[in-house]
């Protein structure tokens, strides 16, 4: 089905995607620069951000060049890699703990990266291979059980860290993939039911750490404890709302520069954007995300096989869910979790993951006509 008019460049390169991702990365860098400029050691942070982008672009090129169909024969090793990545921070001497969760891989006291970030991509590939095996028909209980079994391993290990937010990302990724992968509708109902029961049980048996419970309670009632757990949310909403239509100008956000906004270069980067660039800036960002997701959807439908479609779907689900949760938490629509904003938040592991994901999308795109 080779089309003669498609040039070699046109076959490999999807310009709209590259332009969209480039704009997102530049946009993100501008906001991170503004957020870190008034912080102690802000310059160093910004350089680390740029370093993450550079590494990400190199790895993106590798992912792009790599033929994703090769993954099919590597299911076993991929599962082992996934498990190793997730379990590595808990290996004595390799882990570091931040905010109650052990999620950093460090060697000799030097923080390398957060293994749960690349684990998202590995899980997407594993699930794409497994789901594709059913050729769009997942109906039997034993089939569902097998598919969910592959999710259960990384999920269980993530929840052990414990990192509830990242666990939710894994669930969202897989739900999106199952939608495209042909899981019957009634199973989604059953999952919804199981989900509610689990959430109920977790709350009832007090499984959550105190800080997690506080965040949830504050989400339900934001006026609760405005100087404690509700502080972040209240300050974030003030920052975004006070940006009004056009914002206070880059570097002029009072909420941001006077330290009212916590974690402003990472989890609350959107609050900085909302404050300094206003509704205009927020709409611009959402527009870029819309472009990214629409292009990815287009790539997913044009994949030559189901595995490629599923990989693209997994990335779409991951980004959509993270955008919803992250932006949603800064404006009080979602509970506060430590989930960063794709292509925007400071954090090299996360940036690299997003760029490698982009590379995987391009890999699927480049092979749409066969290899």
């Amino acid at each position: 089905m080779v089309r003669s008019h498609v040039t070699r460049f046109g076959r490999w390169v999807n310009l709209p995607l590259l332009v969209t991702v480039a704009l997102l990365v530049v946009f993100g860098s501008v906001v991170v620069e503004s957020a870190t400029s008034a912080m102690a050691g802000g310059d160093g942070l910004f350089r680390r951000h740029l370093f993450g982008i550079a590494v990400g672009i190199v790895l993106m090129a590798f992912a792009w060049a790599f033929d994703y169909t090769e993954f099919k024969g590597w299911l076993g090793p991929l599962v082992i890699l996934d498990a190793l990545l997730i379990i590595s921070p808990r290996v004595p001497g390799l882990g570091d703990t931040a905010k109650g969760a052990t999620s950093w891989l460090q060697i000799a006291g030097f923080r390398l990266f957060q293994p749960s970030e690349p684990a998202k991509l590995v899980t997407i590939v594993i699930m794409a291979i497994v789901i594709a095996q059913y050729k769009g028909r997942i109906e039997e209980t034993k089939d569902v059980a097998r598919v969910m079994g592959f999710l259960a391993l990384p999920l269980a290990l993530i929840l052990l860290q414990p990192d509830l937010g990242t666990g939710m990302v894994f669930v969202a990724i897989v739900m999106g993939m199952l939608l495209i992968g042909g899981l019957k509708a009634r199973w989604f109902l059953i999952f919804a039911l199981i989900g509610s029961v689990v959430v109920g049980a977790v709350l009832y048996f007090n499984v959550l750490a105190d800080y997690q419970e506080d965040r949830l309670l504050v989400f339900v009632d934001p006026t609760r404890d405005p100087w404690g757990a509700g502080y972040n949310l209240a300050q974030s909403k003030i920052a975004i709302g006070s940006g009004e239509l056009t914002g206070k100008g880059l570097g002029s956000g009072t909420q941001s520069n006077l330290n009212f906004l916590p974690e402003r270069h990472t989890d609350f980067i959107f609050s900085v954007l909302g404050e300094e660039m206003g509704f205009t800036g927020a709409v611009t960002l959402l527009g870029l995300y819309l472009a990214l997701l629409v292009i990815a959807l287009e790539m997913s439908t044009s994949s030559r096989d189901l595995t490629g479609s599923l990989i693209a779907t997994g990335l779409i689900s991951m980004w959509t869910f993270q955008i919803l949760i992250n932006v949603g938490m800064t404006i009080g629509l979602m509970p506060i979790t430590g989930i960063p904003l794709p292509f925007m938040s400071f954090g090299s592991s996360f940036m690299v993951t997003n760029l490698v994901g982009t590379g995987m999308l391009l890999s699927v795109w480049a092979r749409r006509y066969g290899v």
Partner: protein
Amino acid sequence: MSTFREQLKGRYAALALVVLTCLGVLLVRLWSMQVLSGTEYAAMANDNRVREITIDAPRGRILDRDGNPLVTNRASLAVSVSPSAKDDEEMLYRLSALLDKPLEEVKLRVASTREEALRPRIVAVDVSRDVVSYLAEHESEYPGVEVQVVAVRQYPEGNLAAHVLGYTGEISEEQIALPDFESYALGDIVGKTGAERQFESVLQGDKGYRRIEVDARGRERHVIEEGEPIPGRDVVLTIDSETQKVAEQALVHALEDAHADKFTHAKAGAAVAIDIETGEILAMASMPTYDPALFIGGISEKNWKRLNAKGSEYPLTNRAVMAQYPPASTFKAFTGLAGLTHDVNGEWSQYYCPGKWIEMGEQWPKWCWQRTGHGTINFHDGVVESCDTVFYEIGYEFYKQGDEELQKLAREFGFGSLTGVDLPGEVEGRVPDAAWKAEFNADYPEYKQWLPGDTVNIAIGQGDMLVTPLQLAVAYAGIANDGTLMRPHVMQEVRDETGQAVLSYELETLATPGVSKSDLAVMQRALKDVTQSGTAADAFSGFGASVAGKTGTAQVAGKDDYAWFVATAPTDKPKYAVAVVIEEGGHGGSIAAPAAREILSSLLGLPIEHVRAQDVSR
């Protein structure tokens, strides 16, 4: 059953819908927050970062007539506690021990709701350097505790003229509700009594402010806007410090004299000296007195109770204007003037004093203080000797005329109404008449009727007649000033910080009673002879100036007699009027007159000495 390829379109549509819904929800929420409610959030962001700090204006000083400071300001190291620390019992306990203050008092001040919610509560002023450095070294053990420098009142002359100056304190909730105090905040220091209260509006000044930007920890980043405070203005009083000292000393001497004369209940008194031509108050003293410095930084519960306790004789009361007494024989001058004006008597009219006066009927006898009687006596000598019978006769005549002309004249001389002196808390006194009596005894019909004895009692300044020492001084000044009463006042001028007068007191005539100059001259001659040959001759023997005056010895039910003396001098060109009252001090001639003499010697530049007099007449 459809094929998977067909199904896939629907599934992608569902996925696209989820994506669009997620972005759509965020967009709608952002629109609502940033566009619809943006202004409210912008206001909240400003509240976050902008703090307004008020800067108290230095309070104006109070000076005496020569510009000597009576009240100034000084810097004091104060310890304040943030209201957020009000429940930290353990810390407050340690703090109270450190400051050597009762725990209850510290807690009371920290928990005070009478101040702005966030304003730190001052719990102690004039804290020692040791305490300050201890707090600095143990900062972390005293959360919410701060040392700050505050301006407090200073009294270079101690408690001199305490009643005229008054004291300051935190504004009360009642005060802050008044329109005059609109610009005040709870916790502000305001004048509570005396000149501090009377001239509050000029002394206070205008607060400055500093609008600063703070970071999340409340640390100042930079000043956004600043307004300098405008210092309060200085008030120059008419008080002459030297005479004021003498007047206060004279009261002390008078009380000692009274005790020496076995009047052991004598504990209180008042003296006032005014300039006859201007109404300026040169001295105003009240006993017992108090130390206004006790109120610096808030008076302690213990001291406040002590100053207001029963049996304390209420030292905070300025008896010269806030207390009213029967004027007794000092009122005879006005009874006499009424008689002269209405031709009831002349200067040399003859009377006969038998000691026991029974004109109103055998069953209503009245006694002259001289129980043996003065025998044949003319009006002039009746004043000089203070013969009660002469004035019974005059009073009885006024009763028979029935026009209440005696009371009318008394009112023309300012009795029964405020002098309008520029000091708070002045009382009116009372000139009783038939209408008053009927109303006063409304519930006791048997006492409502005005009787001959009522007018006769007024004639000798007894019965229901009440005056303040200041009223009496002003009225006597009127006699000496040929019938012109000047409004008494303590404020001379208001000065700005450069010493320029921005406001000067404008002299004001209080009253011009309808009394002829010749009748006034009759009274002036008689009052002069009081100190030459009459009831005050003993007290004024050897005095270096000619003085007109009148003794009084007031009978008060259930108490020892109150001693009065009121005088004007010098007689050839009257300049000063002085009134002295000693509660339960005994006789006017022996107790009050020497005190008046002491004050007059200061006013007239004569050697100041205290003399003892033996006269026990009225």
